[in-house]
């Protein structure tokens, strides 16, 4: 009985203390809310990128709004979107109604970002997405401009372009294999996790692969969290396909790479493997992830333009790891929001939007231009293509993640060749060379 009373009193006291210690309102600052799954790498990327940006801007005195300077204040919000979509919406609502932020950046899981977008649009605050790739998020802008015009996408480009870029990687590696290993017709095994965003890509891949002179050996779809893919790997090996086109965003990317390496499957992996973008990939695959190639936004040593190296160096120095694409919140603040605010001289969203729609600017990952639908309706989507956003193809070589694409890439037969500074040639795994050069 006594125990219960003590328990009850401590709980009550605890709550009283908490209620009283609400955060106090600070001085006049520009409040930017950073929302993301903070317990995971993606959210950490959101927060780190934003922190770097805020520190940089505040160090030079702040943002010039009209004739006064205001500093940036960041508000962290853990959306917990991987586990609970309701939590994400609550976090967003809290940012907008309690913390009264002026802008929001972040978001990752598409299901949650749809709900979060609706809330931001209710409050008429600019929400810059930095993680969800679903095209419908931007198409909504065209469908209902007055409501959804506050949404912009900073990264990544939508899944159609993701597909297109990975197909280009596929074709490039296929051509390399064909030439170096003398394979007359390269067979491709498509392995994709079971997820919505993958379906159109599989269909498109099945159409694209024959067009570049290769053959589809089969399609396998393990579940996103699959840990044992030996069954799929045995089947793939039986088809004797030297190329595996991977579409993974979840932990199956690690299992697949590890088991393919352990079983010494004679095939290279190209495509999208989000886990392979992380620094910890080799350790997670027990070293078996070598030679895996994937799409990525940043890579150490690769300079897309003159802004890339300073950003990379600063980020690595501050946080000790390569930035993931969610760290584009940095660009969203430093190269997008801040110059636009300074140009417009106000924080009023309705005045900022027309500038944001038409302005073109450079970021460490390329040149940003907002596109419209063929009918001319703005959709606040990133433009893809040489000179704009192309992303990179990266490959694990000897324990390091290096950039291997674009390497003398021509977007069209008459287009100029593109190679970013710091790109190195693609390497074929030695066991493949051994097997095929017999």
């Amino acid at each position, binding site marked *: 009985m006594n125990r219960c009373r003590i328990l009850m009193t401590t709980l009550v006291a605890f709550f009283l203390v908490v209620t009283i210690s609400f955060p106090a309102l600070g001085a006049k600052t520009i409040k930017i809310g950073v929302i993301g799954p903070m317990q*995971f790498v993606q959210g950490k990327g959101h927060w780190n990128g934003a922190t770097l940006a805020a520190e940089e801007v505040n160090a030079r005195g702040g943002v010039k709004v009209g004739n006064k300077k205001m500093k940036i204040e960041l508000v962290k919000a853990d959306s917990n979107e991987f586990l609970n979509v309701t939590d994400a919406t609550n976090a967003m609502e809290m940012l907008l109604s309690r913390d009264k932020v002026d802008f929001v950046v972040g978001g990752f899981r598409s299901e949650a970002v749809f709900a979060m977008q609706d809330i931001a649009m209710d409050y008429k605050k600019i929400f810059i997405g930095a993680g969800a790739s679903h095209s419908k998020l931007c198409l909504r802008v065209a469908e209902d401009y007055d409501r959804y015009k506050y949404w912009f996408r900073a990264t990544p480009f939508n899944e159609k372009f993701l597909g297109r870029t990975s197909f280009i990687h596929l074709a490039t590696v296929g051509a390399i294999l064909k030439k170096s290993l003398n394979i007359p017709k390269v067979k491709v095994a498509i392995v994709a996790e079971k997820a919505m965003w993958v379906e159109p890509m599989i269909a498109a891949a099945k159409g694209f692969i024959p067009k570049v002179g290769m053959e589809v050996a089969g399609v396998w*779809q393990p*579940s996103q969290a699959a*840990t*044992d893919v030996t*069954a799929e790997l045995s089947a793939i090996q039986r088809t004797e396909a030297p190329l595996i086109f991977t579409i993974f965003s979840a932990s199956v990317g690690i299992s697949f790479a590890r088991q393919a390496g352990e079983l010494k499957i004679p095939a290279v992996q190209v495509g999208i493997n989000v886990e392979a973008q992380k620094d910890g990939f080799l350790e*997670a*695959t027990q070293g078996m992830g070598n030679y895996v190639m994937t799409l990525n936004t940043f890579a150490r040593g690769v300079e897309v333009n003159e802004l890339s190296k300073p950003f990379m160096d600063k980020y690595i120095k501050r946080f000790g790891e390569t930035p993931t694409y969610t760290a584009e919140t940095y660009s969203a603040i430093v190269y997008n929001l801040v110059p636009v605010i300074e140009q417009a001289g106000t924080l009023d969203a309705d005045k900022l939007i027309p500038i944001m729609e038409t302005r073109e600017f450079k970021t460490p990952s390329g040149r940003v231009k907002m596109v419209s639908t063929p009918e001319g309706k703005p959709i606040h989507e990133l433009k893809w293509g040489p000179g704009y956003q192309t992303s990179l193809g990266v490959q694990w070589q000897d324990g390091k993640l290096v950039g291997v694409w674009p390497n003398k890439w021509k977007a069209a037969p008459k287009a100029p060749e593109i190679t970013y500074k710091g790109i190195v040639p693609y390497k074929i795994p030695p066991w493949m060379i051994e097997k095929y050069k017999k």
Partner: protein
Amino acid sequence: MVLDIIIAGLINGSTYALLAIGFSLIFGVARIVNIAHTAFYMVASYCIYLITQKLGYHPTVGMLVAVPLVTLLGLICYKLFIDPIREHEAAVLIGTIALAIAIQEIMLLIFTGDYLSVPALIQGYFTLFGVKVFHQQLLTFVAALIILGALRMLLMNTKLGLAIRSTAEDREVANLMGMNESRVAMITMGVSVGLAAFTGAVVVPLTIVNPFMWMHPLIMMMAVVVLGGLGSIKGSFMGAYILGFAEALVVFLIPMGSFLKGSVALSIMILVLLIRPEGLFGIAFEEER
């Protein structure tokens, strides 16, 4: 193809069998549905990760340290959280769920949500009838058989085993006969958690370590135990292999649908329960009046 299925089925089945036997044991003896069973399996995996990756020892050392450590943890949790509320079945269910969630959060705090992995006890693979099998997978299969044999020996040939079996059959009468029923329950809990830890040690090199890894094995394990019949170790063993084969069949026959293997396994379980509500070898509980 058939060989692929057989071998994959055997290996899947062994993993589930190892987990299910421990779960079934504690249920049969103490009527405790220990939802935190796979959470202890996760703690063992993290222990091994810590010892092999951070401290650099060989995985066998990791196993030898992790299993007793996790067993001790399990016993402490039992004494603190489960023993006092054993009488209320619903409360035990919730308590073990809360315990599992607490363990998950602690792991999340210490290790963050990143995906980690552990090196295999025995590296490499060999080829059996044209199918590539990891040495670790063979180890899992052998371990399942050894554990079953050891457990059978414990239950049939020792005094402790006799106490466990009689407590499982009728708690009150066993108490009347002079067996300290709560001590037997505690020992069984120790054995059960020890089995979970051992499973973690053996199976974890084949899987990815992250704080949410306990949910999926939990569901499959419960399906196996229900299919085989709660309280029957033989049933759990059989159920594990049946569901293991079912999963392998799905993966091989429907490559585009291998994400469905969980659903198919569960549907089989429901179908069996429709025909035989106690599971294959289960004991139908008479309602206590």
